[in-house]
């Protein structure tokens, strides 16, 4: 036998990976459970919910039709209710992302680069709003939107995004503060005003922050349950999160847990895809090479 250092290398490797693997298992367990239950028959899924020892690593006879059934049976009109909810979710999410990116980058740019009286004070005030729990503003906001006649429309979910959010503005401000002044001066010499600088130079350079802000906004809005629950009342206005909930109450409990899980999987797919697609942007910055480093 040839002596080798391999055992020690393997051990270090193993010890280093054990916590990571345990963490991954912990994170993936609910997803796996959801996927498996979504492919079980109604009876076995019901038993799984009661803690019966029926869940296998992979179902013996996957019930793929559960997915079609779930999409058909959500709401009061077959298919239409699901498609409505999907469309609403897409409209709200896309609008929120666009609104958040535009408003937060613009305000962040102003805080980072425009010298104006009271800038520091206003920035502090804005940061202070982060300390307010959402529950505190919930009722005043509802009253405000009701007085505007926006209840049971998508507007209360979309419009606030166009007025910025403290944390995202903070992210943009920090990033924009790092953009070399010379680039903006070159832009001014090339004929750009403040808005031009923001749109043509600052925003394209902010891609890494924009990716983060967009992904977080997407995940938050797509999965948001509270705001749609407060503002949306008619079924045609439901988003997917609310539609899922209606599914659960509609069947009063555990009977259709396999369908609920199937629809949950469907709802999650865009989040997973987006995360995979944006992973590169998270890691890679665009700013390198702009100026001599």
């Amino acid at each position, binding site marked *: 036998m040839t002596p080798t250092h391999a055992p020690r290398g393997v051990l270090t490797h193993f010890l280093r990976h054990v916590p990571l693997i345990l963490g991954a298992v912990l994170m993936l367990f609910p997803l796996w459970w959801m996927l498996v239950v979504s492919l079980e028959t109604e009876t076995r899924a019901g038993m799984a919910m009661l803690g019966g020892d029926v869940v296998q690593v992979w179902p013996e006879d996957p019930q793929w039709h559960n997915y079609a059934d779930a999409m058909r049976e959500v709401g009061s009109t077959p298919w239409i209710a699901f498609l409505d909810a999907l469309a609403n979710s897409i409209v709200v999410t896309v609008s929120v992302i666009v609104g958040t990116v535009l408003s937060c980058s613009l305000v962040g740019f102003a805080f980072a680069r425009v010298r104006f009286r009271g800038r520091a004070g206003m920035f502090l005030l804005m940061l202070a709003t982060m300390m307010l729990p959402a529950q505190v503003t919930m009722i005043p906001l509802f009253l405000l939107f009701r007085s505007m006649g926006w209840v049971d429309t998508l507007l209360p979910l979309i419009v606030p995004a166009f007025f910025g959010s403290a944390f995202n503005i903070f992210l943009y401000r920090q990033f924009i503060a790092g953009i*070399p002044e*010379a*680039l903006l*001066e*070159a*832009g*001014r*010499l*090339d*004929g*750009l005003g403040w808005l*031009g600088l923001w749109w043509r*130079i600052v925003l*394209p*350079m902010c*891609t890494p922050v924009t990716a983060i802000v967009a992904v977080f906004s997407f995940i938050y809005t797509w999965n948001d349950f509270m705001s749609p629950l407060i503002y949306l009342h008619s079924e045609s206005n439901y988003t997917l999160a609310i539609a899922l909930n209606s599914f659960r109450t509609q069947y009063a409990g555990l009977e259709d847990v396999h369908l609920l899980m199937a629809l949950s999987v469907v709802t999650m797919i865009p989040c997973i895809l987006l995360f995979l697609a944006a992973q590169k942007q998270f890691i890679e910055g*665009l*700013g*390198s*090479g*702009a*100026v*001599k480093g």
Partner: protein
Amino acid sequence: MAEVRLEGVTKIFPGDVTAVAACDLIIPDGQFTVLVGPSGCGKSTTLRMIAGLETATSGTIAIGERIVDDVPPRDRDVAMVFQSYALYPHMNVEQNLRFPLERRRRTSFLKSLLSGTGRAARSAETVAIGKRIAAAATQLEIEDYLHRFPRELSGGQRQRVALGRALVRDPKVFLLDEPLSNLDAKLRIAMRAELRSLHRRLGATMIHVTHDQEEAMTLGDVLVVMKDGVIHQVGPPSEIYDRPADRFVASFVGTPPMNLIDGEVRDGRFFATSGVVLSPPAAIADGPAVLGVRPEDIRPTQDGGVAATAQSIERLGDRMDVVFDVSGTSMASRCEPSELEVGQSVAIAIDVAHVFDAGGCGARRSTRG
């Protein structure tokens, strides 16, 4: 092309920091002018005020016939090359060159819409823009990487693109803010020559800022030597070198720097504070003074001269840098190679001496041998 005029231009930053104090300067049309001085002397601020990136606290700046104090940077018809190049990182080289032209066209597009001029004129303009980019790219030899992004270029290539971006605009005045200081020594010397030849070809007014006196001497038609926001001397390199206006200019220009000795002139002879007595080559008026002697104007001599001892010697092949001790006063000298040894006593002669007022500033009294 245009003349640039500064009249009483002052810049005071918040906190009462005076960056530029009552600066009067005329930069003639087509001249290569170099603003030079140690860091913090106000040279960059002066340049930025001409560009419109800083507003003068008081005074007037004119480019050509036009007073530009209230004109925004984009309308001043100046192009600036930044020390950090300031290339847009999200645009490739070609887009970087096109950007300033497109911006201008957009403004004229609005005008053409209002005045009702046709589409033909616009497409002709697109062709013209393409030609200008191609011409600038050829001139600076950057055609091969028009489609690369700034991050994919070397320092020298980025520098050329930055120059190209100024070039395509065909501005009245080029403003160059330490454009060579990020390059390595070899490339810097090559780019100096290119800048000179570019200036010869274009015949444009160029204002270059640097803290490097050697770069200033080799590049400029005219040097503007500044310190603490004040212009100390304006003149061609030879004049700055041969007839420095004051002690600061004398010590700033030249390597190794000029020897400056405090003392007093009596009866045509210079009595240094340290006790040395030197005889300047020509008669000057009596009074407290500072004697300035360039190292290359000191040489060992056989007849007469002042007694000195060689303190240290650096042999550089074609020349020799020697520090002489003249009765307790050290004097640097650059002379012909010889058999001189450390500790050896020789007599030295001074060919040219400059005499400045004791304060170091103010009027100059210079004597030549």
